[in-house]
């Protein structure tokens, strides 16, 4: 029987998706006034268990109690009204409506005046909430679509906090946030604890988990491996529990190998409609060039402009043979690749199969007798990536949306690695990826660099930039304001200073 301090119990929970077991006999309890961390590799079942608690889906087997009563929510709205709010991993806002309408989505009846909805009242109430939370970057009346990903995530946090949740579930939210955004989220979580409420925090960032969580529960392959108190935290031990094998020390590059003088990609005075102003950069053969900056600095637009997705109004992007990159097709024909930060909306066909996604870059190379595609060659093209990148899947003909976040990212990588691209523009490539997958990605980057490939790494993770890049360009207001060499051994604080 649950005591007064226990707010939620999960008892022998199973969840199957067809033949795949997502949760296997999972049991744990949450107490009031604590921040609980749920950690594990991609596909370990973290989001599955939290989404069942929050009413997004139901368990195959097992029970839950909430405040001592049986708990079986049928929808997120029901869970929200009963005090369980969840900020989901992927986009949870609708772009074509206002911030206020997103905050009260599904609860418009609260503002009913006769047959009409009191829009002014709805907007005022949402603005009051934003003021209370100290959010000044946008207004309740703003259209959501014009805000960037981080701001849209902040809307979701505000939306969740309106209901003053007894349990706040934060699923992989911090990866979408910049440093300031993260600080805001941590403040919200700390306030929950102070008010004797509960937080369930899911993240792949071990440092932030260790810093902000009172207890850490490790999941692997749908099974709880163990729960650690704060005093028991030790990074290597946690990593080992997560991946099931020893994963020692630093997984970044330790070398100071340089790169060739040969310039493979040049951006000269690149100006775009909104974000970039006379941006200049050169990427060399065998170089990992990092780009970092605060939110709104324009770094994500750099990737799009270099790959020909974002229209360049002035200036130009050229590859080494002098060709101007004006479209993704031209970029790909010159052996460029681009991994978007918005993986699910831009980099993957979620309802397509794993094979279709990987093969999408190989129509030409897998063709025989002109334009006829060889099924055999195509199968080899796909299988090699699934094997080399160790993509965990039930089969290559399964849809990509059956995969966990990390494995989806591997599929994105797979399609570009398979295309044998020489220049890779990677925008936050390790976002939402667990430590095991991250380690293998970094190893891959290093191998690519050594093979003479060039990587432009846009990242919001300073450690990643410091650990992996030969050079780091710091951006501010759409321009490069500082160049930092690997040999200078930059620190996080020095980079932040340059950004500010």
């Amino acid at each position, binding site marked *: 029987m649950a005591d007064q301090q226990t707010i939620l119990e999960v008892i022998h929970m199973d969840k199957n998706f067809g033949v795949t077991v997502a949760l296997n006999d999972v049991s744990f309890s949450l107490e009031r006034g604590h921040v609980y961390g749920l950690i594990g590799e*991609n596909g370990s079942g973290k989001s599955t268990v939290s989404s069942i608690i929050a009413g997004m889906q139901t368990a195959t087997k097992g029970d839950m109690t909430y405040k001592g009563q049986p708990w079986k929510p049928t929808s997120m709205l029901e869970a929200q009204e009963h005090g369980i709010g969840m900020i989901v991993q992927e986009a949870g806002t609708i772009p074509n409506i206002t911030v206020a309408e997103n905050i009260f989505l599904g609860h418009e009846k609260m503002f009913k005046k006769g047959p009409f909805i009191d829009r002014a009242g709805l907007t005022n109430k949402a603005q009051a909430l934003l003021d209370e939370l100290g959010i000044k970057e946008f207004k309740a009346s703003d259209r959501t679509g014009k805000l960037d990903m981080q701001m849209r995530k902040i809307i979701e946090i505000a939306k969740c906090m309106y209901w003053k949740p007894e349990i706040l579930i934060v699923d992989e939210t911090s990866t979408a946030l910049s440093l300031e955004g993260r600080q805001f989220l941590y403040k919200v979580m700390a306030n929950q604890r102070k008010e004797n409420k509960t937080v369930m925090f899911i993240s792949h960032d071990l440092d932030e988990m260790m810093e902000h969580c009172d207890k850490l529960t490790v999941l692997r392959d749908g099974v709880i491996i163990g729960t650690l108190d704060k005093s028991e935290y030790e990074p290597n031990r946690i990593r080992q529990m997560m991946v099931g094998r020893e994963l020692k020390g630093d997984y970044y590059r330790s070398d100071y190998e340089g790169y060739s003088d040969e310039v493979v990609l040049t951006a000269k005075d690149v100006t775009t409609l909104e974000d970039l102003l006379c941006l200049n950069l050169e990427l060399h053969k065998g170089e990992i060039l990092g780009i970092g900056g605060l939110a709104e600095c324009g770094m994500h637009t750099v990737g799009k402009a270099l790959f020909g997705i974002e229209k360049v109004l002035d200036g130009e992007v050229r590859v080494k043979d002098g060709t101007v990159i004006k479209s993704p097709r031209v970029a790909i024909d010159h052996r460029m690749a681009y991994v978007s930060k918005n993986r699910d909306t831009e980099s993957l066909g979620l309802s397509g199969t794993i094979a279709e996604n990987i*093969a999408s870059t190989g129509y*030409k190379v897998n063709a025989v007798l002109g334009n006829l595609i060889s099924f055999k060659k195509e199968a080899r093209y796909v299988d090699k990536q699934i094997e080399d990148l160790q993509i965990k899947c039930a089969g290559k003909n399964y849809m990509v949306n059956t995969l966990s976040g990390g494995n989806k990212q591997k599929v994105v990588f797979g399609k570009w690695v398979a295309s044998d691209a020489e220049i890779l523009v990677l925008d936050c490539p390790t976002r939402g990826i667990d430590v095991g997958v991250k380690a293998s990605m970094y190893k891959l980057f290093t191998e690519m660099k050594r093979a003479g490939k060039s990587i432009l790494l846009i990242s919001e993770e300073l450690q990643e930039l410091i650990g992996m890049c030969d050079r780091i360009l710091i951006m501010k207001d759409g321009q490069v304001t500082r160049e930092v060499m690997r040999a200078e051994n930059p620190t996080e604080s020095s980079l932040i200073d340059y950004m500010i």
Partner: protein
Amino acid sequence: MEKKKANPIKKILESRLFSQIMPVGLLIVLTLVFGVITKGRLTNPASLKIIVEQALVVATVSTGGAFIFASGNVSLSLGATTILTATLALMAYNATGSLVVLFVVAIGLGVILMTISALLSTALGVRVMYVTIVMMTLLSALQQAILGGATVSMPYEVVQALVQGKVMYIGFGLFFVVCVVLFHFTDIGRSLRFIGTNNLCAEQTGISKSKYLLIAFLIAGVGCGIGAVLAIIRGGSIGTSTLPSLNMDCMLALVLGGMSIFGGSKSYVYSGVVGALTVVVLNQGLLMAGVDSTIIQAIRGVAFLALVTVSQVRPKGLPAPEG
């Protein structure tokens, strides 16, 4: 996630093969059911031959249309294009007496009319569905203006010669084989399916939506042209009331044939053929069973809506959320 010992029934239900075979199963079951209801009248060789011949026009047009639907777009002008093309091609034949002219005008006009739709959509940035609604109205009005209340006919002996020469089967067969190759063995089909899955991702993978949409409309135009010739051979004449529900039949055929109305991964070029046969079996079976033609229209509408609804439902066992 770990892999559990597979439940064989679930595995079969979730398999891609099952979704491909199911439409054929539906066709067989419907044929058998109506065979029993009509006490064998539907399944006798003469009736089956009529069913196949009736299905050829819909099968041809929808096979071409499958390329457009695969890209996640819905074309509503396939029927009107086919009928106007048939009208003008038959008039051209009557003026020249040349079968070559008939074929050239039919295919050429089909391609031109569909290309206009594609260019309007890509150049103006208007969704294919809206452009084709306008085209459908425009082309039907044009046919009405050309024919008025009259019909245009092909001499009986020419029709007979074409029927006996198996031109309907040869025309459809050649077009179908070419479409199968283009759809399943070249980058055209794959690119269109990928555009249907996520057009933003497709663009960023170097697949030009405008280019492939234009190709899809060109192929569909050829289908409309060949379909127009088959409609002439089958009916011997063309009027404003010829094949009035051809577009609806094509859409119904595609979804009955197992194609997702939203295109993408679950798009198959043979859907039009299997579906066309199913549509005709349904029509003929209900007619032979004594069902009123108005009610048959309603049944077809309900079937279409039901199939579209079903195709929106995620297969239960497949899309697991984030782990």
